[in-house]
């Protein structure tokens, strides 16, 4: 039993068909629970009032926006090294989801920034990096769309993903160098004693869990769609030959 079994599309389809309802159900459950808990059963912040509650959407979405790119990087590497098609399709499937999370993070940030910073947008390092990440996602998706041959597209987008990762990191540090920020430091990190007060912290953890599960569910679903589309193409091609 190894993870490479799931490189077999049939095996992947079987297992994901079994797992998808569970992951989706858990995602919905924890998102509903976390968001209701966060929105209605936490106190208002003494300075930010109720606007602080957007954190339950903003932080998980921003986390997953970056994690989605990391996942694409890993699956692209697996595709380049071991030529497993499911891996390439998973990377393709994850890109629009990651883009959506990036946009959610930007929009919720703007909604929060208006009352708190007095502006929808500031050229702050974090905000700018996220905008650049959006561009990287768009380029990646556009390259997938532009190339007809699926294997060529998979190869080229994988190379783009590798190079893009390096340049995304470079841009992150270049942007830090370019402007000092308005954005607060990391809300969550593993090495800090206390991140945010516990009343906000526990619902936030539930929301993050929900977003992770939602991401996994969406990627599974989209990968299944891609595999089916690929099979359909194969069937059509066979029919044309016959």
């Amino acid at each position: 039993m190894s993870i490479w079994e799931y490189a077999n599309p049939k095996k992947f389809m079987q297992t994901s068909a079994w797992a998808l309802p569970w992951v989706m159900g858990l995602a919905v459950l924890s998102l509903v629970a976390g968001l209701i808990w966060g929105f209605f059963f936490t106190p208002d912040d003494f300075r930010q009032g109720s606007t602080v509650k957007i954190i339950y959407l903003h932080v998980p979405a921003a986390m997953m926006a970056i994690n989605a790119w990391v996942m694409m990087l890993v699956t692209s590497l697996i595709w380049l090294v071991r030529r497993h098609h499911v891996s390439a399709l998973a990377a393709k499937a994850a890109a629009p989801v990651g883009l959506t999370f990036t946009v959610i993070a930007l929009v919720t940030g703007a909604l929060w920034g208006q009352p708190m910073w007095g502006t929808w947008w500031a050229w702050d390092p974090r905000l700018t990096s996220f905008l650049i990440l959006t561009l990287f996602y768009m380029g990646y998706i556009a390259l997938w769309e532009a190339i007809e041959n699926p294997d060529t597209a998979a190869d080229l987008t994988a190379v783009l993903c590798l190079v893009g990762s390096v340049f995304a990191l470079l841009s992150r540090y270049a942007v830090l160098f370019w402007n000092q920020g308005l954005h607060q430091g990391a809300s969550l990190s593993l090495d800090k004693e206390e991140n945010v007060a516990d009343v906000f912290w526990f619902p936030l953890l539930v929301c993050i869990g929900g977003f992770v599960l939602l991401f996994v569910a969406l990627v599974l679903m989209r990968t299944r769609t891609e595999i089916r589309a690929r099979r359909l193409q194969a069937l059509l091609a066979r029919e044309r030959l016959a």
Partner: protein
Amino acid sequence: MGALLSRDLRLAMRAGGGFGLGLAFFLLLAVLVPLGVGPEGGVLGKIAPGILWVGALLSCLLSLDRIFALDFEDGSLDLLATSPMPLEAVVAVKALAHWLVTGLPLTAVAPVLGVLLNLPVEGYGWLVLSLLLGTPALSVIGAFGAALVVGVKRGGLLLSLLVLPLYVPTLIFGAEVVKRGAAGLEVVVPLLLLAGITLGAAALLPFAAAAAIRVNLR
């Protein structure tokens, strides 16, 4: 390699090669910006470093799809790929040729446009130096982008979507050098970072570009 370089240079110089087009675009940009922004010297001088760097970036972009597309269409890229010279070297030479016909002339005319844009006197040396150090990175990164889209018909727009985000670090450090230089501040750090990006890109990206070309020629 020398033969390939001189061939690419000659092709670029001859009629229809597009040499000078990028330069004309750069000049136009430097004329249009004051028309749009207004003639106040203070404002222009302040934004001149950024405008000149963005202009260099865009004029570089104009001629990128010529690096591989024509050779791909008439089959000479296949010949180059099967020649004894490694494909990585082909990419490097072609990027060099692209730099010689775009980046280098851009660097040469940039001070003149700096005058048009009212760049402070202290900035000229840094402008030339930063462009000299930074534009090779633009050509190499561009060659990588061009290698990715070489098989796509009418890939020009896609090319800019792919390449411009990759230009971000070069732009930031390059413009920062000029901005700080013009203000009389310390410039060593951004200058070294800019040189680092150019060297890193020139060392590593030919491999990625060659891999992309191999995929496209498959």
